[in-house]
């Protein structure tokens, strides 16, 4: 069996008496984009910082590509490229000098050609010899990606990478990550922006109060139930409700407005309802299925957690 790109076992961090991170285990497969979701302060950043050894672990083990953090620190760190929150640079130096600085720290030699290649990759080759203090936030973010990729890492770790990026920048960033994953690089990304993560990740874990409370693939999470919620836009919702009341297949009708109502039905029933409405002289202007968002799932999962543990909602 192939070694996992990242393997995290029983990661724990205790500060004082408080467990900031509590027995978190997960693994990231090769070429996979794995998301760590959770509200701010849930412990995502602490987990990531423990993986890259910025924060000492109280307990637990981390290995990247089979290299263990305890015994093979150098080998492991060589496999990782990371952006921890907003990437900060030496503003008084040029982008090139900044990259050169990190290239010098790599174990395997990084050639000057490679530096320029990465600069071109993130579309910074025109500005690479300007001082970083003249860069926009988006450019700095891209320089951040460049420094993380310089040494051809097998695992990319990104902590809140879209913080401070405009929608255009976020989209570019996302496309870029997909391209990297396609090339076989694994990505661990943390964020509290659920809509963003839904588009970005293959699998995800939800962290809450330092604990990992859910882990699944995005596909599984988004798989629709047999019944979905459908909204109809009609000439008169009151008349429509009267017509549909007798139907056994139609349940939980909700009137949303004078000309809108929603039902909870199976796929086949949608067309049945449509026919019924038309044959009863009710005009149908629109039918739309409500798609489940990661946000809905997230709230479902976290609320369930609260209920099951009898916890207090913050």
């Amino acid at each position, binding site marked *: 069996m192939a070694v996992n790109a990242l393997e995290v076992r029983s990661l724990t961090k205790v500060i004082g008496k408080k467990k900031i991170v509590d027995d978190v285990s997960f693994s990231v497969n090769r070429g996979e984009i794995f998301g760590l979701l959770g509200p701010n302060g849930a412990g995502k950043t*602490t987990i990531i*910082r423990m993986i*890259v*050894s*910025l*924060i*000492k672990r109280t307990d637990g083990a981390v290995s990247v590509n089979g290299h263990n953090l305890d015994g093979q*620190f*150098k*080998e*492991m*760190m*060589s496999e*990782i490229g*990371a952006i*921890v*929150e*907003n*990437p*900060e*640079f*030496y*503003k*008084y*130096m040029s982008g090139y*000098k900044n990259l*050169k*600085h*990190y290239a*010098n*720290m*790599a*174990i395997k030699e990084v050639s000057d050609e490679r530096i320029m290649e990465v600069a071109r990759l993130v579309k910074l080759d025109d500005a690479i010899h300007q001082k970083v203090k003249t860069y926009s936030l988006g450019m700095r973010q891209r320089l951040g990606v460049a*420094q993380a990729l310089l040494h051809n890492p097998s695992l990319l770790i990104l902590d809140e990478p879209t913080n401070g990026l405009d929608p255009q920048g976020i989209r570019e960033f996302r496309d870029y990550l997909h391209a990297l994953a396609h090339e076989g690089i694994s990505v661990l990304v943390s964020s509290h922006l659920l809509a963003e993560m839904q588009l970005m990740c293959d699998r995800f874990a939800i962290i809450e109060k330092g604990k990992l409370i859910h882990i699944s693939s995005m596909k599984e999470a988004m798989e629709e139930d047999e019944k979905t919620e459908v909204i109809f836009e009609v000439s008169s919702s009151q008349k429509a409700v009267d017509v549909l009341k007798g139907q056994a297949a139609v349940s939980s009708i909700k009137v949303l407005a004078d000309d809108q109502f929603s039902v909870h039905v199976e796929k086949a029933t949608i067309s049945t309802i449509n026919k019924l409405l038309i044959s009863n002289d009710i005009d149908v202007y629109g039918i739309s299925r409500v798609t489940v968002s990661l946000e809905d799932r997230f709230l479902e999962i976290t609320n369930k957690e609260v209920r099951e543990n009898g916890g207090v909602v913050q």
Partner: protein
Amino acid sequence: MIALIRNELMKLFQKKSSWIYLIIIVIAVIVGGIISNKVSDEPDPNWRAGMKAEITELQQNAKNAPDEEKQFFTSEIEQKQKYLDENVNPNAVSNWHFLNNVVYPMTTLVTLLAVIVCSASVSAEFADGTIKQLLIRPHQRWAVLLSKYISLMIYSLILVATLIVAGYLVGLITFGNGDFSAKIFELAIDGQKEAAVGPQFFLKMAYYLPSLLVITAIAFMLSTLFKSQALAVGIGIFVLFVSSTLGGLIVMLAEKYEWAKYLIFPHLDLTIYALQDKILGDITLPISLAILAVYYAIFMILTFVFFQKRDISI
């Protein structure tokens, strides 16, 4: 390791301030040269006659003076007689006299600038957030810290070298090349010490280096303790001033209490050994050096242990 040191030196010299500090030293030496050229008299070829006249006048005054003042006059006369006996012109000028009298005291400026640079070193990485990107490389923390320390020591030595070279050149231009081993008398606690001017200057510079080493070690330690660059630099300068002020107090304290002799402050200025063999009664140069070595080791161990264990959570 060499790559790490090269990186740190690159960062140091990409900062404008590092160059400005070097320029400040050169300017200070030039100003010192101009001022001492203005205030120093032309060396009088007939100084011996003048000196003899002064002695006669002092002898006259001594006769009429009250008993308690007589001692002052006798020591004054003795001093001047010494100049005559040894044939040392007290007003002699040369580039070596300039180095010994004007340039050597400017080491205070070098210390100040070195403290500023050292205490800003690590704290600036924290303040700018670049420490995160620096420590996720395949290098142990102590190695990164050591490379910083070594590069700072190289910079401090460049500061010292700039002072000596600029001092020599300015001295040469203003006063011309003089006798390297011209005799001088320097005021010490127990009377006048006879010395050769050139060797005396280099002896003082040699005694200056250990104290520079220890003071910069304190500044470097402060820079790892604080996340704010301004705070680290402020406290660094504060410690520098307090230590130079406390020296005198400790001397008084040491007369009463034995332990006060082992405080760091009286040993920070070793150049006093260029004038006398013992300080605080019975402390000799090797003892002072040993005490400094112990403090130095403690500061370094604290710095490295603290930095190694620290959680980077900015």
